């Protein structure tokens, strides 16, 4: 499994449009963008890496109150075994009228044989 696949599975029941990298269509009033951040090898033994540390950023854009979604996302991510490394309200975009909230996540995977 990969972090992106896990995130898509976790976020699917929340009924929020999700895209990776950039939202290609005309954005709805509420949507999520996943940006992969890092994919490092870790836990070395016998010149081999045994773990992969994957990190990604979830950017929530909403024209409504973001608090409910923030709580829903946090709960879903934590129940799905994802570590939240940071949460931050980035700001209100006056030009687009979107609230922007960022959640940074991380998960460790064993390297595949």
């Amino acid at each position, binding site marked *: 499994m990969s972090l992106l696949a896990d995130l898509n599975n976790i976020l699917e029941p929340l009924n929020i449009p999700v895209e990776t*990298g*950039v*939202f290609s269509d005309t*954005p709805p009033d509420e949507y999520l*963008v996943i*940006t992969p*951040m*890092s994919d*490092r090898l870790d836990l070395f033994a016998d010149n081999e890496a045994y773990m992969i*540390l994957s*990190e990604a*950023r979830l*950017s929530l*854009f909403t024209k409504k109150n973001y608090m409910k979604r923030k709580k829903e996302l946090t709960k879903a991510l934590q129940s799905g075994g994802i570590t939240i490394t*940071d949460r*931050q309200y*980035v700001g209100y*975009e006056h030009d*687009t009228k*979107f609230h*922007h909230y*960022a959640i*940074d996540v991380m998960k460790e995977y064993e390297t595949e044989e």
Partner: protein
Amino acid sequence: MANATMKMPNEFLMKLTKLGDKTDEIVSRVLEAGGEVVLDKVKSNLKGVIGSGTKEKSRSTGELVSSLGLSPTKLDRNGNFNVKVGFNEPRGDGDANAKIANILEYGKSGQPPKPFLKPAKSASRKACIETMKSELDKEIEKL
């Protein structure tokens, strides 16, 4: 009853005294060595994201990269020494480097984020700690 007195070697005691006297100086040098490792990573990540995948031709002037630097060691309100990696202000065009860096890092609606700070923080953590450890050993050896 028998008495036993243990004495530490004089040379070791002298070194401990010197270490106590020079703590501020040593901590500062150690932190700056670690900060340089993080700064290099942030700078290389930033160079990688500026101008990449833009809808129009990049108008980058290089000012953001050149304003990136390491602060001198400062003592915070909790009594801890620290150095910061950040941007020098102001820009020539009157805008704020920190604002531009924040938009690059987090993106906007319709502008994908290009994270450079967070990945640098996680990627350079171990190297930074190792550098500071070896710098501290060197400083202690010099006493």
